[in-house]
């Protein structure tokens, strides 16, 4: 059902954990679908780049792998660039998720957009 890349990001995610003093937090998911996801971001005020990003995800293997992948895609990007990351990008970078798991890629992009929309540059 899953390819090697998904399994690799599930078994050895690089971006999981909390950031102590994040500039923004993004959330997505609900208990009904069983996936709950939080993204923590640190923003470089001058360049508007994401200089650090971490995730905490309660969810299936695809949700964990997609969380790791969105962090990998978003880090070092400007907020303007990052908001353009689509769920197709996440899915393709993971070597395409199974159709039943596409919502996991949607979920992680939702969380990132939630975070970016929460960003108040002056705070």
């Amino acid at each position: 059902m899953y390819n090697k890349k998904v399994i690799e990001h599930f078994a050895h995610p690089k971006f999981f954990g909390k950031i102590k003093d994040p500039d923004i937090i993004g959330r997505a998911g609900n208990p009904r679908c069983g996936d709950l996801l939080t993204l923590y971001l640190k923003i470089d005020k001058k360049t508007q780049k994401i200089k650090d990003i971490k995730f905490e995800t309660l969810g299936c293997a695809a949700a964990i792998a997609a969380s790791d992948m969105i962090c990998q895609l978003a880090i070092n990007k400007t907020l303007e660039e990052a908001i353009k990351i689509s769920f197709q990008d996440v899915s393709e970078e993971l070597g395409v998720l199974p159709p039943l798991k596409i919502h996991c890629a949607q979920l992680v992009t939702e969380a990132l957009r939630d975070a970016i929309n929460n960003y108040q540059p002056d705070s």
Partner: protein
Amino acid sequence: MAKNKKIYFDYAATTPLDGSVLRKMLPYLKENYGNPSSVHKFGRDAAEAIDIARGETAKFLGCKETEIIFTGSATESDNLAIKGLIKALRKQKRAGEKIHIITSQIEHKAVLETCKELEKEGVRVTYLPVGADGIINLEDLEAEILPETDLVSIMYANNETGAIQPIKEIGRLIKKINENKEHRVYFHSDAVQAANWLDCRVDELGVDLMTLSAHKIYGPKGVGLLYVRQSTPLHPLITGGGQEWKLRAGTENVAGIVGLGEAIRQIKNQKSKFKFIASLRDKLVADVLIMIPGSKLNGPTNSNQKLPNIANFSFRGVEGEAMVLALDQEGIAVSTGSACTSQELTPSHVLIAMGRSELEAHASLRISLGKYSTKAEINYFLKVFPAIIERLRKISGR
């Protein structure tokens, strides 16, 4: 990944084919290829093999050979029992007369979806609730049986939690009600999970219809059976050449039926096997609950009310499919009631019916043991599992 480790803890999903069952089947996949309906020697040999299987089955169920219908699966048997009975009863009823089925919220999808289909055709269906232990309440059932009730369909033991339903008591209740009732209530039970462990004699249970599957008892996939008590009205769902007492047409799956018969013949010493497997399960449950904080057992606590081979847990802060996959990487095969492994997005209807939250249902893990399970396998599981939970909880932050 753990090298060479392969531990199968998913016997409730399917069991391996027993070697001696396979040996009995092989001739009917090779040289004894006759069609049982044929008059010649080839055909007679095949027909005789089916007769032997039917005889073994009748002995196990304590019924007549003419009361057994071989089918293509337990799902088909459930469909035939429910739709076939209702179809036959419809013919006997006056126009506009009500049809009523009582089943439970924790049935297998083969029963639930079949009932839902019938609801679309105007049949009224009552889905009985269960307690936190996953067992129906007899009084709830009694209260729902009305003059128009035609069928009660309750599984013998649940496939997710192992909870044993009070089938004998239901059988007695229905018998009593039928004594004073104008038209009969028929009683069907899906006994697929129970067959390895519990008394399946139909007169003891008081069932009119009962479903069994070969591949849950170390037989082959693609064959099931339906017991049909004599003079129970039943209409075929598959019509054609009139096989299986005209109730299930199609050339018989001879090798499969031979395998089913042999698998049933080998169900012996239920009590001593029950005890051994229950002791493995008890160690597993006790150790998991101690070693892993935030773990809960789903299902009955009383050993007499559950199958010996199933343990179902929920773990805080983890999701079921992630656990299944992580255990798979250690060579251990288990299953989950999380939606993430199914076609739907809602988690286990069984755990929800027991009052578990959606998160708890998503966080469930089912370990089901079988006749090849060993203490060493349990120990290996207990060795690797806590670290998996710890890792997944770090990822979830919960």
